[in-house]
């Protein structure tokens, strides 16, 4: 039996920084030093601290090595694994205290986290069903099939207060209860793994790190609503997730945890994976089902709701990956355990993908009701380079911004909606003082213009017009009337679009108009971009008093916009300047300013 386990993160983040090569190097080096039988190397899912990848954890010591390189592997093997001397220089420095090495759970990044959906990510090998079973995997399914009636299962999920983690926050138990009584020759369970919000990657990490938790939960949902067939609709852009899911499904079939007559209960359930081709609209439940049916991914009007007429016209229950991942622990630990976490109307935990201007980019799972300040300043490690926090964006292209003055807002579904924001799937993009809020709104609109499927006019044409107006404002041609029209158009699109994509597409504009109207006004009335982002609205100037005439800027300018004699103040020709900023970087006397 192995005396030591080396866990190498095989999530997408660490894989892209070559954790695959590190895994190989460990196997090779262990072989070379004759330790292959004593030390076991394991691929796991995401540990969450993606900013410090590739990440390697060595047990039983629990040493957390960060930013590991292939060249470091022989040292870890000969020092740590052979001689037991932990290579302190490679440890995640926050775990190194003066006289001892702290446990990972004591670091700022992990200590406030409560891992429910991510419970196994980074701990088990997702490609081995035994490791999932070791952590009580499939016990919940067994319990449901042998001890509970379908009605009792639905009651437990309802009592737990679990709400949809994909964005809308619809109570999961109610969704199941609406589907269960509808009689039909075939019912379906669908898992929405078409994670499309820019910056969100929690569903991917769960599928990569713990695919069985989703499979188990789908079988439980199938039992609860009377469905025997399931589909997982996952983006083709997630190759690692797709591969691990397929391995997991095969292993579950081999063990008889998918298939006929599970646990001798007479209940049959099987699953198939369907790949999405990358359309954002396919994350909308009706468009997703249309796509599974083999048609072009376009939404259809509701009602009829999927609970009555969903996939192939049959009653269908559709939940998101993270929602499913919460189900097995709820069954095993009871609804009271789950509802003891979180706020009054938002129970449990939520996974957030931290991104943007923040030190610890990565994946965190926190109880609902944690404030934005705790997430950003404590868990996230704050804003780098001493910059000031300006706003956080949640919910991607469907969400809005939380401004700095609301940083103490406890994060849950209802609080976010009350400030014109949205939980969304959990992308949390942090922005500092160098971010232009009009530009951000424009960025998201550009995304929705691209991704609108074109079926309904308000979304197809409306988002295009919104984007044009924002373009006009950021280029310095906007009028105050444009601002009013912008807002009106937003409400029109919201009220008249067919599906969630169009109904929420104006949110980034509305939210920034609400909290950062002064920035819009600065763009329109003063023709200035306060954050110096919108190029049309800024100009570079040399302060004659400070310029020593060193010619450094002149030499750096790629378009020869700067003229002047040596030791004489230089001048920038604004009609030629392309505002690239090269001169500012070269100037040693702070003589160049952006206006």
């Amino acid at each position, binding site marked *: 039996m192995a*005396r030591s*386990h080396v866990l190498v993160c095989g999530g997408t983040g660490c894989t892209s920084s070559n954790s695959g090569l590190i895994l190989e190097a460990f196997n090779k080096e262990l072989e070379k030093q004759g330790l292959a039988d*004593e030390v076991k190397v394991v691929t796991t899912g995401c540990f969450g601290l993606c900013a410090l990848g590739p990440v390697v954890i060595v047990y039983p010591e629990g040493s957390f090595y960060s930013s590991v390189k292939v060249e470091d592997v022989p040292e870890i093997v000969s020092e740590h694994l052979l001689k*037991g*001397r932990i290579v302190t220089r490679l440890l995640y420095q926050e775990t190194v205290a003066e006289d001892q090495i702290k446990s990972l759970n004591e670091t700022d990044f992990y200590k406030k986290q409560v891992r429910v959906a991510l419970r196994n990510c980074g701990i088990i090998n997702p490609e081995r069903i*035994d490791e999932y079973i070791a*952590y009580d995997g499939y016990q919940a399914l067994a319990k449901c099939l042998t001890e509970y009636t379908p009605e009792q299962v639905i009651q437990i999920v309802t009592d737990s207060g679990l709400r949809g983690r994909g964005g809308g926050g619809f109570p999961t138990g109610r969704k199941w209860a609406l589907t269960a009584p509808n009689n039909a020759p075939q019912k379906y369970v669908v898992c929405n793994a078409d994670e499309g919000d820019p910056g969100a990657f929690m569903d991917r990490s769960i599928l990569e790190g713990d695919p069985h938790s989703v499979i188990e939960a789908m079988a439980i949902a199938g039992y609860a609503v009377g469905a025997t067939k399931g589909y997982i609709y996952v983006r083709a852009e997630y190759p690692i997730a797709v591969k691990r899911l397929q391995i997991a499904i095969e292993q579950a079939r081999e063990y008889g945890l998918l298939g006929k007559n599970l646990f001798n209960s007479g209940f049959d359930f099987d699953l198939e994976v369907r790949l999405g081709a990358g359309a954002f609209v396919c994350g909308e439940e009706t468009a997703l089902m249309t796509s599974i049916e083999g048609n072009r991914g376009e939404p259809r009007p509701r009602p009829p709701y999927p609970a009555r007429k969903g996939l192939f016209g049959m009653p269908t229950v559709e939940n998101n990956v993270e929602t499913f991942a919460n189900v097995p622990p709820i069954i095993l630990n009871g609804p009271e355990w789950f509802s003891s976490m979180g706020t009054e109307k938002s129970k449990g935990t939520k996974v957030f993908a931290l991104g943007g201007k923040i030190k610890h980019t990565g994946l965190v799972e926190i109880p609902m009701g944690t404030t934005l300040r705790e997430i950003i300043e404590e868990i996230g490690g704050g804003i780098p380079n001493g910059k000031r926090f300006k706003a956080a964006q949640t919910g991607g292209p469907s969400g809005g911004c939380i401004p700095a003055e609301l940083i103490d807002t406890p994060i849950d579904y209802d609080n976010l909606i009350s400030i014109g924001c949205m939980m969304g799937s959990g992308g949390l993009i942090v922005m500092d003082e160098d971010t232009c809020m009009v530009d951000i709104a424009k960025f998201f609109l550009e995304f929705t213009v691209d991704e609108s499927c074109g079926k309904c006019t308000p979304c197809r044409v409306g988002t295009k017009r919104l984007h044009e107006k924002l373009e006009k404002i950021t280029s310095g041609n906007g009028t105050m009337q444009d601002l009013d029209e912008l807002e009106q158009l937003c409400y029109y699109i919201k009220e008249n679009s067919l599906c969630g994509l169009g109904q929420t597409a104006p949110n980034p504009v509305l939210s920034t108009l609400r909290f950062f109207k002064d920035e819009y006004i600065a763009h329109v009335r003063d023709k200035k971009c306060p954050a110096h982002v919108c190029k049309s609205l800024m100009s570079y100037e040399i302060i004659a008093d400070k310029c020593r005439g060193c010619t450094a800027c002149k030499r750096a300018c790629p378009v020869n916009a700067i003229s002047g004699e040596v030791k004489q103040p230089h001048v920038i020709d604004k009609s030629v300047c392309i505002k690239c900023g090269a001169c500012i970087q070269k100037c040693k006397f702070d003589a160049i300013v952006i206006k």
Partner: protein
Amino acid sequence: MKTLAELQAIRDKARMQMKMRGDNREAVRVVVGMATCGISAGARPVLNAFVNEIEKRHLENVVVTQTGCIGMCQFEPIVEVMAPGKEKVTYAKVTADKVARIVAEHLVNGNPVMEYTIGNVMK
């Protein structure tokens, strides 16, 4: 999979192999000196003997780990057993043959094997 018992058998077996992962601060620690001196005196077979013996007896809550040189090279292989709230016991000149007895008497029954401890070996 037809019964819960079947599933639990797989779970218990897999759990045994994975118990070292996670926070083990409450566990009994068996620390083997694995510096150059320890290795050359034969610490590696000792380390592996501990791992295998502990698995054979299905002992939960015991962690086997290594450490460097503690400065008494002539007594290597040195093994220290640290149980929370109890005084550390240091064994000297341990061989793989002695491991089974240490596991049985000390780790299972809680009685240190006095004749193998460093105090007695030094005499």
